[in-house]
C-alpha cells in the first residue's frame, strides 16, 4: 500500500530507514540521567500551554495520529468492525463541520492482533487507513524466531501495512546487542514493504539507559518507528521513557539522516495526555514530528475524551460521553 522508499505525507516524503549493521559506538557510551529525565518530563507540560482554537487544532492532529487499538483476548470480527467504523469517522460530523476542516478526519491506523487483520482490512477498504498488526508473539515475544517471523509474513500477506513487533527482552537485559539487532533486522526483512514498529516494552527494560540502547539497536536494525510498550507491561508509556526514546531517535537522525517515527502506547487515556506527548515531540524533535508518518499514539479510550473536548470547543458546553458513538 505504500512504496518501499517513502511513507507519509505527499509533499514531505520521508526516506525510509535502510537499517545498518550494528554500530556499538553510536550508543555504548550513552548516558541517561534518570532524575534529570524525570525533571524534564515533569515540566514539559508546564512550560507550554495550548488553548482555544489552537487546542482544537492540536487535538484534531492528535486524532490523526491515533493508532486506534483493540488487543484483547475477546476480540471478534464484530468488535473489529465497530472499531474500524470509528476509525473512519472518529469525530461526529457536526463537530467536524463546525471545526471547518477541509477534509474528513480519520485516525492514523487501526491496530489489531494478526488473526483480526483480515476483518480490519475488509472493514477499512477504501478508507486509506492502514491496518497495523501486532506480531512476533505479542506481547511477550517468547515464541521461537521462526514462528515470530512467520507471524509477520502472515499479517503482511493478509494486508497489514504496519507491523508492531515486540523485542526479545532478554537480549536487552543481557546487553546482547548483536542478537537483538539481527532478530529485528530479520523481522524488518519479513515485513517487506510494511512498516516496522519496534515495541521495546520499556516497562520490562526498567532503566532509561537500557531504553536508549535498545532504541538505537532497533533503529540500526531498520525500524521505521520505535514504540514504548505493548500495553501489557506493569508500566507502559511514561514521559521520561518517551523523552529518552525521542532523544535516541534524534541522535540516530543526526548521525544517519533518517527520520524515525515514535509511538507511545499504553496508559495514554486523556486529551491532556495527547497534548503532553505532542509538546514532547515538538519541543524535542520539532514540528515535523507531529504528523502521523512520524508520530502515532497507541490508544483506545483517548479518542472519546478528545471528542468531548472538541465538542466543548465548538459548543462552549461540556459534553456527555454518550453523545459520541462508541468505538
Amino acid at each position, binding site marked *: 500500500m505504500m512504496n518501499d522508499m517513502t511513507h507519509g505525507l505527499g509533499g514531505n516524503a520521508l526516506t525510509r530507514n535502510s537499517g545498518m549493521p550494528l554500530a556499538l559506538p553510536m550508543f555504548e557510551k550513552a548516558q541517561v540521567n*534518570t532524575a534529570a529525565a524525570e525533571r524534564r518530563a515533569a515540566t514539559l507540560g508546564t512550560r507550554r*500551554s495550548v488553548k482555544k482554537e489552537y487546542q482544537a487544532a492540536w487535538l484534531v492532529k492528535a486524532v490523526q495520529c491515533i493508532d486506534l487499538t483493540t488487543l484483547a483476548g475477546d476480540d471478534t470480527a464484530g468488535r473489529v468492525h465497530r472499531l474500524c467504523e470509528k476509525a473512519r469517522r472518529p469525530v461526529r460530523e457536526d463537530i467536524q463541520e463546525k471545526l471547518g476542516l477541509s477534509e474528513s478526519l480519520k485516525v492514523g491506523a487501526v491496530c489489531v492482533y494478526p488473526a483480526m487483520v483480515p476483518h480490519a482490512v475488509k472493514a477499512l477498504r477504501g478508507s486509506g487507513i492502514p491496518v497495523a498488526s501486532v506480531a512476533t508473539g505479542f506481547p511477550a515475544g517468547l515464541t521461537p524466531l521462526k514462528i515470530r517471523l512467520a507471524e509477520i509474513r502472515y499479517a503482511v500477506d493478509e494486508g497489514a501495512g504496519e507491523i508492531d513487533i515486540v523485542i526479545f527482552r532478554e537480549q536487552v537485559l543481557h546487553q546482547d546487542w548483536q542478537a537483538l539487532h539481527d532478530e529485528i533486522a530479520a523481522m524488518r526483512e519479513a515485513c517487506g514493504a510494511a512498516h516496522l514498529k519496534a515495541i521495546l516494552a520499556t516497562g520490562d527494560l526498567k532503566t532509561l539507559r537500557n531504553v536508549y540502547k535498545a532504541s538505537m539497536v532497533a533503529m540500526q536494525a531498520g525500524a521505521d518507528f520505535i514504540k514504548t510498550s505493548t500495553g501489557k507491561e506493569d508500566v507502559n508509556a511514561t514521559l521520561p521513557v518517551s523523552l529518552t526514546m525521542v532523544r535516541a531517535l534524534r541522535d540516530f537522525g543526526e548521525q544517519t539522516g533518517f527520520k524515525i517515527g515514535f509511538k507511545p502506547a499504553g496508559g495514554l487515556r486523556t486529551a491532556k495526555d495527547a497534548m503532553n506527548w505532542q509538546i514532547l515531540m515538538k519541543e524535542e524533535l520539532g514540528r515535523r514530528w507531529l504528523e502521523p508518518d512520524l508520530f502515532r499514539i497507541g490508544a483506545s479510550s483517548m479518542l472519546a475524551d478528545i471528542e468531548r473536548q472538541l465538542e466543548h470547543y465548538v459548543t462552549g458546553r461540556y459534553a456527555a460521553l454518550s453523545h459520541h458513538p462508541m468505538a
Partner: protein
Amino acid sequence: MPSVSEILDSMDYGPSPEQNSHVKEWLGRHKDGFRHFIGGAFTASSGKQWIEVSNPANAETLGRVPQGTAGDIDHAVKAARKAYKSWSRLSGHERARHLYALARHIQKRERFLAVLETMDNGKTIRESRDIDIPLVARHFYHHAGWAQLMESEFSGYGPAGVCGQIIPWNFPLLMLAWKVAPALAAGNTVVLKPAEFTPLTALAFAEICMEAGLPPGVVNIVTGDGETGASLAKHPDVDKIAFTGSTEVGRLIREATAGSGKKLSLELGGKSPFIVFEDADLDAAVEGVVDAVWFNQGQVCCAGTRLLLQEAISERFIAKLRKRMESLRVGDPLDKSVDMGPLVAPVQLARVTALVKKGESEGGTLLQAPSPLPAKGNYFPPSLFVDVDAASTVMQEEIFGPVAAAMTFRTPEEAAAIANHTRYGLAASVWSENINVALDAAARMKAGVVWINSTNLFDAAAGFGGYKESGFGREGGREGLYEYLVPAWSKNLAAGAEDAAPVSATPSADAAANVVDLIDRTAKLFIGGKQARPDSGYSYALASPKGARIGLAGLGNRKDIRNAVEAALKGSAWSSASAHNRAQVLYFLAENLAARADEFANRIKQFGAPVQAARKEVDTALARMFYYAAQADKYDGRIHSTNSKKQTTLAFNEPWGIIGLVCPNELPLLGMISLLMPALAMGNRAVLVPSQAQALVATDFYQVLETSDVPAGTVNIVTGARDELARTLAEHDEVAALWYLGSAAGSAMVEKASAGNLKPTWVNNGKRIDWFAAEQGEGHDYLRRATQVKNIWIPYGE
C-alpha cells in the same frame, strides 16, 4: 484569528495568556499610591516622594510606592521594637501557629501572588506559579516547624532582636520569605525593605499578614530605594541586618554596620561554574543550562553562567545547546508558553547589553536564540558566548542577565581549578554519570551550594549562601536559623576586655632586667613551621603589671603577616587531613603542653597572675584542647530532608581555609587556645596574633607546636602591635575569616577593613568573655564559626 485548518499547518502554540483581572482590580484599589506597613497598619510616608512601579513587559505603570525616609524607617523600627517584647516572649508553639497561618494564607492567595509577581518583575508565569510562590509557602511551613521546635532544638539561644532586611528584585516574594520566616520563627521582629523595582508582592504580603492575624509590628515593610535601605542598615536600634543583593552594596553595608554590634548576613553575587564532564548525560546537561542560565532571565545570583566543558564533548555539547536555543520562546511573561520574559528594568537591559558588547569586542562569538522579541519591554535574547577564555570579561563579571559563556577544560583537576578561580563562591553545578568524578568535583568546589546533575534546586530545609565574596551566612535549614539567633549569655556581656597599650620599639633604661639568672632567650615569630625574626628588626618590651621587665618580643609588621599568610596558603595539608588525624595531633599538642604545664604556669605568673589562677589557666586550656580534639571528628554535617523523594542533600561543615585569630590580651594561654583549637579542629590554618602584652606565652607555645607533628604552615604566630596586625589581616584578601577579641574600636576597625573581600568576622566589641566558663569559652558556637556549610544536592535514581 487563524482557523483550525490553518493551525493544523503551522502547529503553533498560539497565545495562552494568564488572566490578570483580579490583580488589576487590586492595583486599581491602590491607584492613589501604596503605603508603608508599620505597626500593623498601612501608614503614609513622612516624605512626599514616590517611586513609580512599572511592568517590565510593557512599561505600563502598576502603581506608586512611597520613597521611605529615615523617619519612616525610625517609625518602623520603633514599631518592631515594641512588638518584639511580646513576640519574643510567645512560646514556640504560639509563634508556630502564626507562621502556619501565614503559610496557609499564602497558599490560598497563590495565583494572585504569582500573577502580581509576574507583572511586577517580568518573570514568566510558569516560574512564579510553579517555583517562586510554592517555595514561599514551603518556607513558611518549614519555619512554622522551627518555631515549634525552638525551645527543644535551640536551648541556650534567643532571638537577635529587631532585624532589618533588605531584599532584591529578582525573587521579590521568595526573598521576603527567606528573610521573614526564619526571623519570625526565632522570635525576632522585622523591618523589611523590598527592592524599589518590585515592592508589590511585599505589600500584598502585608495584607496577608493582616488577614492571617499576625500581631501588629512583628512584620513592618517600608518601601524605598537604596537610601531607605541605608537608613535601615545604619539605624542604631536594629540588632541584625540581612541583605541579599550585589557584592558592591554588600560591601557598603558591611562598612556601614562596622562596630555597631549588629549581626550581619550577606547573600551576594556569583559567577557560578557549570561543569560538564565527558561522561555526562549531555541532553540532561543541556536542559540544565536552560534552567541555570535562562531561568528568570538569568537574573539569578547562583546562575551557572560559566560553562566549563570537557574537551572531548565540548563541540557536541555546544551543537546540542544551539539546537535547544532554537525552541526557546521569549515574550509576554503572562503567556503560559513563554520561557523567558523581559529583564526587570531598562537600566538592567542597558547593563547586560553593554557587557555583551564588551564580550564581542574582546573577540567572543555571540550566539543568540532566534526567538522574536516583543517590540516593547526590556527584552534580551537567550545568549551564549563561545570562543572566550578565563580572562574574558564575560567569563569573569556577573552579568545578571541571560548570558552564558563557555570554555573547555582537559581534566577534572583543571575543571576545579578554573571553577574556583573567581572572587565568588556561591554555587556550582557538576554533570557526570560517574559517582567518583561527580563527588570529587563537588568536594573540590569552593562554593556554598553544589548541584550534582542538576541546577537551581532550592528548598527551605537546606541552607543557601556563598563562599568568598558571595557573602556569608546561610538562608534555610538549621544553619540558616543561627543567623537569627544569639547565645543567651552573649546578650549580657559587660565591657572590659583588656585593651592593648601602645607599643614601644625602642630600648628603655626604666625597665632594665633585674638579674641575669638565665641565659637570655630570644622570642621570634613562628611562620611556616620555622622560627623567624621579625621583618622590621625591632622588638618590643614585655613587662609585668608592676612594671618588671620580662623580656622582648618581635615587633611583627605587615610583611610578617604577608609571609605568615603565604605560609598558611602553602600549608593546605592540614585542611585535607582526615578528622581523625587532626584529632590525634590536637591530643598530642595537649600531651606536650601538659608535660610543660609548670613552665607555662610560671610564665603566666610572671605576667602577674596569682599562682592558683595561672595553674587554673593551664588546666582549663588542657581541657579545652581535649574538647576540640574530641570534636574534630564529631562536629558532623547533616543530611537535609529537602523536598523531593529521590534526592539527598548533604550539608558539609567545611573549613574556611586561612583564618586570622587576634587573641584577647588577657589570659594569654587560655584565650589563645580558645580560638586556635576550634579553628584547627575544623581544618583551618591559622595566622595568630597572640596577646600583645603577654606574647611570650605564645612564643613558648610554638615550641610545643614544633614537637607535636603540626604540619608547617598550619599555625603561624606573629607578635606585635595587636590592632595594626589585625588591620593587615582584615585587609588581606587571602584570609577567609577573622576573629578579633580586643577593643570596641578595634572591633569596628576590623569589621570595616574586612569589607574588601567580605570575609566574615567575629568580634567582641570590647566585651569581656569569661574564657574559664565552658558556656562562653567553648562549644558549638566556636565550631560553627570555624566552618562554612556547603550543601551538595544529589538527585539519584536509575
